[in-house]
């Protein structure tokens, strides 16, 4: 099983709902709390497993705005795991989720340097590395109704831009989306083989025009209407 996310950049409006849902779930979750630094001060920041990056493509007036929510890609070739000197970082064999054992992490930052996606977050208050767990504490919680056994970022997404599932299963919704919508990996050339995929913007639907009935002049147009009556 390869659990992961498929994120639709055709509908992502960059609203940050997923960012904050992730924060509120995970701060009381298995890696919690997610420390906030200077929450009311000069440089507010904090541990967040998911961040939205916004880019502009092309130039005015043909520019397009793309929102890219980014979190751990749960790579198949997870160098963040390989480089971990203590064995704290691991990729679960059964579902591919990359996790960090907080008791073994010494906060050396090697994994953060190894990760090209910026997915690793050092919690400076405790000196350990934290990261997206795919809400492992939700997705397997059988006391939650089945529909809720999904990552917090997925259930909250107002534009349904996030889909969670097994990328190993060709019949899963995530696999179908990747197939049908030309899903792609972020920076595949780096060779980490990310499990998460992105869907590109859909092609602009072809909009037809109706020419209507042009007349040589607007006076003619007026004349054409003179006898027009409607039933009230």
């Amino acid at each position, binding site marked *: 099983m390869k659990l992961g996310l498929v994120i639709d950049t055709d509908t992502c409006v960059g609203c940050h709902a997923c960012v904050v849902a992730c924060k509120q779930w995970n701060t009381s979750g298995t890696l919690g709390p997610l420390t906030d630094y200077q929450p009311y001060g000069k440089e507010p920041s904090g541990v967040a497993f998911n961040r939205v990056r916004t880019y502009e493509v092309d*130039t005015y007036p043909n*520019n397009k705005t793309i929102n890219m929510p980014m979190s751990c890609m749960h790579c198949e070739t997870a160098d963040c795991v390989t480089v971990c000197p203590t064995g704290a970082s691991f990729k679960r064999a059964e579902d591919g989720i990359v996790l960090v054992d907080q008791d073994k992490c010494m906060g050396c930052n090697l994994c953060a340097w190894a990760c090209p996606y910026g997915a690793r977050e050092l919690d400076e208050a405790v000196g350990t590395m934290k990261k997206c767990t795919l809400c492992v504490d939700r997705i397997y919680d059988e006391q939650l109704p089945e529909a809720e056994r999904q990552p917090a970022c997925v259930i909250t997404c107002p534009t349904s831009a996030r889909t969670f599932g097994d990328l190993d299963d060709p019949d899963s919704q995530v696999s179908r989306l990747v197939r049908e919508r030309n899903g792609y990996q972020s920076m595949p050339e780096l060779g980490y083989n990310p499990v998460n995929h992105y869907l590109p913007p859909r092609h602009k639907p072809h909009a037809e025009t109706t020419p209507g009935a042009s007349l040589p002049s607007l006076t003619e147009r007026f004349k054409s209407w003179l006898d027009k009556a409607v039933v009230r």
Partner: protein
Amino acid sequence: MKNKVLQMLFAPNGAAPSAEAAAAQELPSFEDHSAQEKRHTTCYMCACRCGIEVTVEDNQVRFIRGNPDHPINKGVLCAKGNAGIMKQMSPAKLRNPLMRKPGTERGEGEFVEVSWDEALEHLTERLREIRATDPKKLAFFTGRDQMQALTGLWAQQFGTINWAAHGGFCSVNMAAAGLYSIGQSFWEFGDPDWDRAKYFMLWGVAEDHASNPIKIGIEKLKRRGAKFVAVNPVRTGYQAVADEWVPIRPGTDGMLALAMCHVLLSRDLVDWDYLGRYTNAPFLVIDNPGQGDDGLIARDDEDQPLVFDAASGTFVDGMTPGVQAALFGEYTLPDGRRTRTVMSLIAEKYLDPQYAPEKAAEVCGLPAETIERLALEMAHVAFKESIEIECEWTDWAGRKHDRFIGRPVAMHAMRGISAHSNGFQTCRALHLLQVFLGTIDVPGGHRAKAPFPRHTPPPIKPARDTAPNTPLSAPPLGFPTSPEDLVVDDQGRPLRIDKAYSWEAPLANHGLMHMVITNAVNGDPYPIDTLILFMANMAWNSTMNTNSVQDMLRAKDDEGHYKLPFLVVVDAFHSETVNFADLVLPDTTYLERHDAISMLDRPISEPDSPCDSVRVPVLEPDRNVRPWQEVMVDLAGRLGFPAFVDEQGQPKYEGYTDFITRWEKAPGIGFLAGWRGENGDQHMRGAPNPNQWDRYKENGGFFQYHLPEHMRFYRFANRDYLEWAKEVGFNPSSKPIVMELYSEVLQKFRLAGQGLYDGPLPPESVDRERLAHYFDPLPQYYVPLEEQRVDAKRYPFHAINQRPMHMYHSWDSQNAWLRQITSQNYLFMNRARGERLGIEDKSWVWVESHNGRIRAQIKLMEGCQEDTVWTWNAIGKQSGAWGLSPDAPESKRGFLMNHLISELLPAADDERRLTNSDPVTGQAAWYDLQVSITPAEPEEAGSSWPHFDTVKPLPGAPTPPDQLRYQTHEAVPLRRSFLDIIKRR
């Protein structure tokens, strides 16, 4: 549990039998669900009012998620809603009633804590005196409250006409234009048919109106392959995912819409049957220039509008079913007066070359071909891809139809349209375009939400007269239909403190909150005694001209008395305005109170289903705070308002929830429509149900009434719907709702401006000119008023603002999680334009308007129209306010554009200074601002300007923590075994 974890961690790896089963066995139990409780209530992190499920653990919030059953958000939740925990944790929460410290000056921020008894006794005495002498000396204005039905009732019972909510500086142009034209509007009044539309045009919508409903809707459209066109000077937010972005010059949308109307007319692409049957297009307009009846609708002896019956060649009542009404032509009435049909006037006006795409291209800064193409694309969808829903329905005249015909072109518009001084007419232009395409309340089009549609306009007139100890005879706000309805005295002078319904703003249906402080301090039209502000940051981001308004709040007369004698601020947080209060009444947060989100108020209905909802407390307050609605019911009892006391003059209601349960507007109609009747078995109308709140709680906090299919479309003319709407109290009559393309109401005011109206006339020439120019009975485009008065060469940029999707006003820019996303606003401008001016990305600039100047930091971007600069509103804060540290970037580097915006138009040769508002509705013209941009000196870089003194902390305020480690229970960790480490290498 622990043993199990250890055991499983040492289990050998390899091919797990079933991954899920293995995982389930292997993982610990992360949450102790038995220690948690899930409660349903309504979000209040913005104005959408989504349903939420709050998981509470030890009187703390574990998690807030969208309620999947809720009609508004269907389970999803935006960034704001997800940040509710940090709203609750805010160190800026008010904790106790406060009074300005004796001997200190207003605005110094010195307060003493007082008890509720002391605070309310003091306030009651003051209000009792005002009410017994001149009730309008109390002005009560509310911000983003969701209980205007209650605050309005309270003001009416008090007897003051000086009440309104924030609509006058938000979107009254949109609301008024819709209600005077089509009986509904955008936003809370109607929705695009997200499930059926094939073409969607979004006009001037910032990132928050609405939040989740639009996001859900846009995804549906895109999934179905509908085209999404965004008309907006800025490409952020929703515009990011638009299939086509139309970067329009601010304030010119009316021209664009009318040019599209020109294209449709010139190509004969108009839904004639729809226009002829459901609008006033065939009505006859008297053509009698220079006379008092010029431009009025010709009427019969019963005051019914006349049409020319092409079949009989006679003039007949235009509401006669089946009449063959001529749409075009000139007709002479039996009394000799000449008339023309409304449609003739429309065609003549918009076929004129001044509305041709080539002309609009110059005004809007868009290619003429684009304007024409967009119009023809919409026409294609409306007429070549129309949809039909087979369903028998009966029209107002009793005629049966076997289907609903749908024109699947939908639109939504918001503050980018309404916050200009030409916004009322712009919004009318959009509705004209919609009606040409036949898209109002049809499948695939723009559909009303109960209690809309209402009659054009709803038959409620604003109260005018006040008397001591006497409730108003009508609500303070209503819909004038002629100059007789204005709230002015015999000399034509304004009677309301905000000058709403005066000659300066005749259709000010939501009041002019942005003028209250200025007018009260100037004693114009008269001084007041007490101003109560609820949830409105009127000394900062919700006011124009912030710096001057702060000075006004401190201003004293020659005898040393404050010109605004007493300011009461009701809020849950330490805003900049709290700092100026004489009395502070601390409100609860949204998670700590009851609320009724009523159909008597701003509804949360969906097109297919009238809905209302409640808030219920999910947390116990840990401070000495009270919900304002409880305090209002308490005050109403103390002051003896007739609706709130019994025969003995004793308070009739135990509190807010009791009031909501038992109060009836009319027999059987109360605040909440669900589970009425003594046994809770009646909906929409029925006797009060003592257990109504419980029933709402059982149903997840909301009530949804599903309209039968035959009552879901064409409701303006749908007999069964209209009769039902009357029965449940939405409308006083079941007559059909005629869409007014031509507004006779506007024409009456225009006649008054021309000195021809047979009734009250404006005494001052400036009003006469404005009425004559801007009260065109047909939608028109004109250059926004500030732009007319300032030198375009000196101030070449349009300056506008919007809120980021993750923040709603100052409420959320204080939020510890949300300010990690944005804690400083920039001034955004078009990259190429900036580079031509030698302005570099991230450099600091001076931004100057006719009203003053500010210093701000620039960000260059592609997605910004070339003549436009813009910023995020309400990020900038006064140092020390909202529980933020004095060196927070919000106050040091962030800025308010408000300093540049005057509440008054630049002076001209008028008899008096005029409000910077739409001349029809008084809507605050926030987005008319014109500015210049010049680079700042190098030594000026690094901080914004102006600077303000640091607001002092309030008594008892906690010291904001340097670090937050929020969690509701200790984390249950996931551990990896050494064996596992070894085996996997």
